[in-house]
């Protein structure tokens, strides 16, 4: 069942290649073929439901960003995963599919918000979780969990309170549980718990 769809797609779309997957069929699609492939998947292969749009940041590698789509066919009860590499590492961009699946609207906004990937043809591509002036893309690899200092979304409130968006005091975290060892010793913990925003982190 799983590979048949990929074979059939490969007959029509030269650039499509199978992609390693542990569960559902998955394929890679070149960025320029994606709009045509998406339309075909929806109209001819009955993938009427777009379950998820997200992305992967491969850090040092190039292409750096891969947009991942999860499609579901309500008729056939199967999923399909499509991965589209963004050609430009600096300003990643793919074509929006919000015209095909309306749900892509918000998903693409989230992917833009977190990774800075632009979706060409999106009706209103602005941030959805972070506020509009936020200068960073939090799920990119170079961005730390604690975040970087910047201004509060509201200038007046920032002036009145003196508050800023700060790098969160990690206090030795993030806390991770080791997989090995007896249960009693497997509590989540950070290496060094002494530092806070007031006591700077000791140099290693």
């Amino acid at each position, binding site marked *: 069942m799983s590979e048949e769809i990929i074979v059939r797609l490969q007959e029509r779309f030269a650039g499509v290649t199978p992609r390693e997957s542990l569960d559902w069929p998955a394929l890679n699609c070149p960025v320029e073929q994606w709009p045509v492939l998406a339309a075909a998947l929806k109209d001819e292969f009955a993938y009427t439901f777009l379950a998820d749009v997200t992305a992967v940041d491969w850090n040092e590698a190039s292409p750096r960003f891969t947009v991942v789509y999860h499609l579901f066919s309500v008729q056939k009860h199967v999923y399909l995963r499509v991965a589209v590499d963004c050609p430009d590492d600096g300003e990643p961009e793919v074509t929006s599919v919000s015209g095909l699946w309306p749900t892509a609207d918000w998903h693409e906004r989230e992917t833009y918000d977190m990774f800075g990937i632009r979706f060409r043809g999106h009706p209103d591509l602005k941030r959805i979780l972070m506020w509009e002036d936020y200068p960073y893309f939090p799920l990119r690899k170079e961005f730390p969990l604690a975040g970087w200092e910047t201004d509060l979304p509201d200038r007046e409130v920032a002036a*009145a309170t003196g508050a800023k968006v700060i790098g969160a005091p990690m206090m030795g975290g993030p806390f991770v549980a080791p997989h090995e060892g007896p249960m009693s010793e497997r509590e989540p913990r950070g290496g060094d718990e002494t530092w806070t925003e007031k006591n700077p982190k000791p140099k290693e």
Partner: protein
Amino acid sequence: MAEKKEELAYDTKIEGDIVVTKADAAINWIRSHSMWPMPMGLACCAIELMATASSRFDIARFGAEVMRFSPRQADVMIVAGTVTYKMAPAVRRIYDQMAAPKWVIAMGACASTGGMYRSYAVLQGVDRIVPVDVYVSGCPPRPEALLDGLLKLQKKVGRERSLSRLGSVESPRLSPTHA
């Protein structure tokens, strides 16, 4: 008619029914026993806040059952939940729109310190943007803990100079519209 007018003046017959007290004591007694909360329910702690308000724990026993969603009518803002940086200005503006005297309870770890959210998106304690009177620990605090916090706040109000609270706004006033 003439007789009635006399009743308004000093009258030995009602002398025993008059209570003499200090203005502070009377005003603080009134204030602390009818604190109308502004329920700033922002995350899971708000569920416990709702439990505190409902029949089993019944915050009405302490005069704070009138949850007001209009800041103009509220006395104490109960910040129940995770304050994200995106939400923080709204919290501050609602606080500014509350009429003095006003108080703030930070309910739970998130409101008090950012809690487990050591992250780029969460304000690390609501006391960075509004003055907090009582911190309630817990994740989430049980309703009893919030009630205890309310009682602590009532005691604190009882110790205040009642008139000192009226004019003082801790920081410059903000314009009523969003920037």
